[in-house]
C-alpha cells in the first residue's frame, strides 16, 4: 500500500495583496504568497533551503498597521493581513537597497535577476561619487569596531579588496560580499554545523571571517563548499570557476548540466555536473532535493577529478 505524506494539515488564512485576496496555508510567508501569485519579488539573502535572516531588505513590502516596511521573506501571514507591494515606499526601498549595494560592492556576478531588478527599480550606484581606493589584503578585517576615519566625501567607500586564495578548492572574493549571512548559515546550523566562518567586525567594516582571519586550512573548514552553493554574488566560488573567469574563458552560455547520483556513499545525493568545454567546472545539488536540500559534502562537490581524464594528476 502506498502512503502519502500529507504533512501538517494547516488551516487557510486570508491575505490581501494589492487588493487581491489570497487563501494560503497558515505559516506561509508573505513571499510564498507573492511567489505563488507570480510576482517578481527581488531577493538576495533569502534562499529556500536556509532560515530567513531579513538582512538585505530588498524584498520589503508594506503591511497595514506596521510603520516600517516588512521583509516578505520572513514575515508569516496572519489572517486578515493587508499587504501592498505597489507603493512608492516599497519601490523606493527596493531601489535604494540595490543602489546602496551596487555603490559598495562589485555586483557584476550577482546574476541576471539582480541586473534586471537594478534596471527595473532604477538603481543608480554611480551618483555617490567616484569609487574610493580598495583596501589592502586583510586590512578590512583589522578595523576596530566603533572607529573609522572621517571621510571627505570626494570618493565613495566600498568593500573592494584583493581575492583571498588560500586553498585548492575555493576562493573568497569579498569585494563582492554583501553580508547576506547565507554562507555563515550554511556553514552553521542550517547545513554543515561546522562553524568555520562567522560575521566579524561591525557596521560597514563587518566581514565574513574565520577566527583571527586565519587561512581556511587552519580553520574548522571541511570544504563541503555549501557556502559556495548559497553565495548569491560570486564572492565565494570554486577555484575552477575563478581561474576560468580570470583567464577570460568562463562560458555560462555554453555550459551544460548533467544530473547524476553521487557514487561515493550510500546516501544517494543528486548531483548536477556543470560542464564547460568538456570539463566539470562546478557541482551542485537542487535545493528542493529531499536528501540534500541543495547541500553536499566535499566528495560530492569536489571529488570529480577521476571522471574526467583531462589533466594529469597534480602531484605524482
Amino acid at each position: 500500500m502506498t502512503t502519502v505524506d500529507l504533512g501538517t494539515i494547516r488551516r487557510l488564512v486570508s491575505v490581501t495583496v494589492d487588493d487581491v485576496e489570497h487563501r494560503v496555508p497558515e505559516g506561509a510567508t508573505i513571499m510564498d504568497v507573492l511567489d505563488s501569485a507570480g510576482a517578481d519579488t527581488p531577493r538576495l539573502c533569502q534562499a529556500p533551503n536556509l532560515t530567513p535572516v531579513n538582512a538585505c531588505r530588498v524584498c520589503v513590502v508594506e503591511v497595514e498597521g506596521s510603520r516600517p516596511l516588512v521583509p516578505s521573506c520572513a514575515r508569516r501571514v496572519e489572517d486578515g493581513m493587508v499587504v501592498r507591494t505597489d507603493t512608492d515606499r516599497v519601490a523606493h526601498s527596493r531601489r535604494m537597497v540595490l543602489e546602496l549595494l551596487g555603490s559598495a560592492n562589485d555586483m557584476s556576478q550577482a546574476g541576471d535577476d539582480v541586473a534586471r531588478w537594478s534596471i527595473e527599480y532604477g538603481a543608480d550606484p554611480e551618483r555617490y561619487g567616484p569609487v574610493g581606493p580598495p583596501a589592502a589584503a586583510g586590512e578590512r578585517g583589522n578595523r576596530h569596531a566603533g572607529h573609522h576615519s572621517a571621510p571627505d566625501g570626494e570618493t565613495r567607500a566600498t568593500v573592494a579588496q584583493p581575492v583571498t586564495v588560500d586553498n585548492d578548492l575555493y576562493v573568497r572574493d569579498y569585494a563582492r560580499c554583501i553580508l547576506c549571512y547565507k554562507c555563515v548559515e550554511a556553514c552553521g546550523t542550517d547545513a554543515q554545523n561546522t562553524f568555520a566562518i562567522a560575521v566579524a567586525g561591525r557596521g560597514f567594516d563587518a566581514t565574513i571571517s574565520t577566527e583571527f582571519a586565519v587561512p581556511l586550512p587552519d580553520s574548522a573548514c571541511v570544504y563541503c563548499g555549501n557556502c559556495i552553493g548559497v553565495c548569491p554574488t560570486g564572492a565565494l566560488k570554486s577555484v575552477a570557476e575563478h581561474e576560468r573567469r580570470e583567464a577570460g574563458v568562463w562560458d555560462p552560455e555554453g555550459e551544460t548540466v548533467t544530473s547524476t547520483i553521487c557514487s561515493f556513499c550510500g546516501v544517494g545525493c543528486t548531483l548536477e555536473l556543470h560542464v564547460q568545454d568538456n570539463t566539470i567546472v562546478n557541482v551542485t545539488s537542487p535545493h528542493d532535493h529531499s536528501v540534500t536540500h541543495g547541500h553536499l559534502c566535499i566528495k560530492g562537490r569536489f571529488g570529480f577529478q577521476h571522471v574526467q581524464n583531462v589533466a594529469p594528476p597534480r602531484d605524482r
Partner: protein
Amino acid sequence: MDLTLLADAPTTAERAAVDAVVGSAPGTGPGSPTDPADGTGAADEGRRDLLLPAFHAVMDAVGWISRGALSYVCETLHVPPAEAYGVATFYALFSVTPRAPRIAHVCDDVGCAAFGGEDLCAAMEERLGPEGSGEEVTWTRSPCLGLCERAPAVFLQTTHGHGQIAPADADAVTHALDGEDVAGPDPVVSTPQAGSPDLELLSRVGVVDPGDLDSYRAAGGYAGLRRALAVGPARVVDEITVASLTGRGGAAFPTGTKWSAVAGSPDPVKYLVCNADESEPGTFKDRVLMEADPFALVEAMTVAGIAVGARLGYLYVRGEYPAAEAALLRAISEARRHGYLGDDVMGSGRVFDLEVRRGAGAYICGEETALMNSLEGRRGEPRAKPPFPTVSGLFGKPTVINNVETLVNVLRIVEQGGPAFASVGSGRSTGTKLFCLSGVVARPGVYEVPMGTTLRELLELAGGVPVGLKAILLGGAAGSFVTPDQLDVPLTLEGTREIGATLGSGVVLCFDESTDFAAVLRRIAGFFRDESCGQCVPCRVGTVRQEEALARIERGREIGGRTVELQLLDDVDRVMTDASICGLGQTAASAVRSALSLGLIGSGGGARRNGDHP
C-alpha cells in the same frame, strides 16, 4: 559539535582570568540558562552566555584578547572560535590585537566635543601621541560616555581597574593612567534638585547612602516590595496598566502591555531584563539613578520579576559605567544577604534573584533584542520582530525588558496606586519624567518634572533659557533639533510629536549661536556609521553614504549641486527610516533631517567654511 581550536595556548594570567569567571558563575540555579528544567537549548551550547564576561575578564587582566585566550574561552564555554571572534570584534571595548593595557576613552561626542572634548583630545595627542599609539598607555576617541553634565568626560579602561573622570583634564587623565586613584563622579552634583520635596524618582538621590541598605530602608525603601507581595502579582500588573506607564528608554511602549503578556504566558520559565545600556548621546539619567540610588532599581526589579513570574533577572549595564555597576553589585549582594533577593524574598516564599552583566561598547545593544543577543553571548544584532520578546525573548523565553527609569517608576506606582500616578500628566504621558540637560545651560544635570512641563519651564529650572540659544537637540542623536521659538512645547509624547520631535530618552542638549553645527552633524553621522551593527543594508551602507554626503556639503564640494545632494540625503533617509531592521537605522537620519530643514547647516551660514577646503 566538535570544536577545531587554534594551537595557541593561553598564558597563565589568561587562563586564570577565564577560570575565575566560569568558576564563579551561578551554575544551575533556578531559572538560570542551564537549569535542566528549562530545556531552552541554551544548555546545549554550554555556557555561551558567559562569553562577554569571559572576554571582559581577559581584557581586564591583560588588556587584549590573544589567540590563546580566545581558544581557551572557546574550549571552556564550548563556542566555535570563528563565532567567538565574531563576538569579540563586534564590541568596541574588546581588542583582538595587542593594545596598551591602560587606555583613556575620551568623549568627543556632541555633548562633550565643543565643551572641552576636542581640546582634551588635542592635549592627549600632544602627550601620548596619536590615538591608539603607545605600548603601555594610550588614548582613543569615544562616543558619548553619559557624563554630559560634566563635560569633557573620560572613561578609563585599564588592567588595574576602570574609572570615570568628568570634568577631565589632561593632567588628571595621565595621572589616572599612571595608576593614581581617581574619585568617581559624585552623582549628587548631577542632580541640582536633590533634596527637593517635589521629587519622586530622584527623591533619594543625594539623601541616602547608596551603599547602605539601612539608609535606603530609612528613606522608605522596600515599602514597595512589601506592598507588592501583600497584594500579589496580578494586582501589581493591573496597577502598572492603570498607571499607563510608558517605557522611558525612548520607544515609549506601554509597560503594562509587556507585563500582562509575560505574566499570562503559560511558559514556566520567564525572564526579566533591565536595559541599563544607556548610550543615547546626551543621556545620563539612568547612570545617576544607578549610582545614587541602586537599591531602588534592585527593589523595582524584584517587584517586576515577581509580578511577571520570572525567577531570574538580568541587569545589562553599560560597560562604560563602572561606578553604576559597582553600586549595583554592592546593592544586590546586600539585598541578597538580608533576604530581599534569593529563594525566599522577604519571607514570602517567592524566588527571585539578579545577575549583573556588563556591556562592551555597543550603542546597538540598547535595542532590546540586540541586548538579549548580547546577554546570550552573541553579536549585538537586533532580531526580527515578531516574535516579540514577550513571546520569545532571552534564551527564547517570554521576557519583560524595561529601561532603568521605567522600572524605578514601578515603586511609586505600587506604593501610591496606578490612578495616583496616572493623575500626573495627560493622555499616554503620565507620571514624572527625567530630563538630561547639558550643553550651554547654567546648571546642567538630571531634572525630574511632571509630564507636560514645557521646555521653557524645564530650562528655567536649570538657570534660565541660555543666552544666544540657537537650537536644542531633543531626544538624543536619534531625536531631532528644536528651535527657541518652540520652547513652549509641552514635554509629553503627544506634545513633542505635534512639532515633529520626540521625547526620546530625555535628552535636552542646548547649543548657542557660536555652535559649529556642521561639526555637530558630522559627529552624529559618524556616530551612526560607527554604531550600525552592519546587519541590514539600508543602515550599514546608508549611514556611510549619509556621512559622505554631509562631508561634501560641509566642504562645498557637492556632486551636481546642493539640490542633488539634498535629494540623495533624502533618498538615503527614506530607505533607512522605512526598511532598516531596528530603531537605530530607522532614526539614523532623524537629527540630520531636522538640522537640514531648520537650515542649521548647508544654508551658507556661519558654520560653512568654504575657505577651509580649496
